[in-house]
């Protein structure tokens, strides 16, 4: 039990921000957030892994996106977007510049505090590869933050 809660506490911030950057909508992100942890609780309590967490979350997003595609009007998205809190928009905007795998490993490391070795175990990528991906992600964010507003 504590095992699952520790896992939730450790991963929630990085994972939720990941979902926000995918969905651009906090209700949608919340739905996927809840559903993903539910699936983990049901099927993966013996093998809690951020790798599985991100994989399930991404798949649920893709399924939901495909199913709802017809109903999403572009105007609605923009409307939603403008009403969002500025600070969050910024974090989301920064994350959206990253490739999906860069984003995942960067969030696991910088936000969830996982070591490269642990990330390697849960993603199957080599430590050297992870090191480079995190560096690239960080570089893009750094350039955007210091590049100032155009």
């Amino acid at each position, binding site marked *: 039990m504590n095992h699952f809660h520790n896992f939730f506490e450790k991963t*929630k911030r990085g994972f939720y921000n990941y979902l926000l950057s995918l969905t651009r909508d906090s209700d949608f992100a919340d739905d996927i957030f809840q*559903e993903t*942890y539910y699936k983990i*609780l049901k099927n993966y309590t013996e093998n809690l892994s951020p790798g599985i967490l991100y994989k399930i979350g991404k798949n649920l997003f893709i399924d939901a996106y495909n199913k709802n595609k017809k109903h999403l009007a572009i105007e609605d998205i923009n409307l939603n977007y403008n009403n969002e809190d500025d600070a969050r928009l910024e974090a989301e905007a920064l994350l959206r510049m990253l490739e999906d795998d860069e984003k995942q490993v960067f969030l696991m490391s*910088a936000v969830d505090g996982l070591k*490269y070795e642990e990330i390697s175990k849960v993603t199957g990528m080599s430590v050297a590869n992870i*090191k480079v991906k*995190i560096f690239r992600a960080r570089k893009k964010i750094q350039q955007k*933050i*210091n590049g100032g507003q155009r």
Partner: protein
Amino acid sequence: MKEILISQFIDDELSLPEKKDFVINVKNDDEFYDEAIKFIESEIKFIEKIKKNNIPDLKLKRAFYFNYKIAVAALLLIALSFFGISKVAFSPQQITAAKNLKEYRFVIFNDNANKVEISGTFTNWQKIPMKKINNSGYWELTLSIPEGEHKYSIFADDNVLADPTAAFIEKDDFGNINSVLEV
């Protein structure tokens, strides 16, 4: 590519020889020093932004958001009724019921109880046992319930539990605590 050392430095991932490299670079290379400061400052700003986002609590209980089977069944029934197929063996009540039913998942945490049950307006106040999820201390039950407002209670070994994730809680005329749910 020595910039990558800065990223590893931020993540506490430098080996001892790399630490030596890093310190030498900071001392001898002004550009490297500026870069390192920029990276660290931008990291601080980024983490501040991330921390401003409120993370939702875990509320595993909620209506399913893709209620596909029911939606398809409802559409089919409506279509059939439009074609005026009078011999179809569905009564009008069944059609309305199918249209307005929603799957709802109840999940509650209680790691002391031996049995957890739920009863409510949608079960005619009959107690229905909930199922344990693995050995996690969570109990769950998924029910198809009609749209609208419902009252329910959850019992852990026959003691009433107020559902912490319910939108409202109210006392009924008998002094029982009911949770209120809007489907």
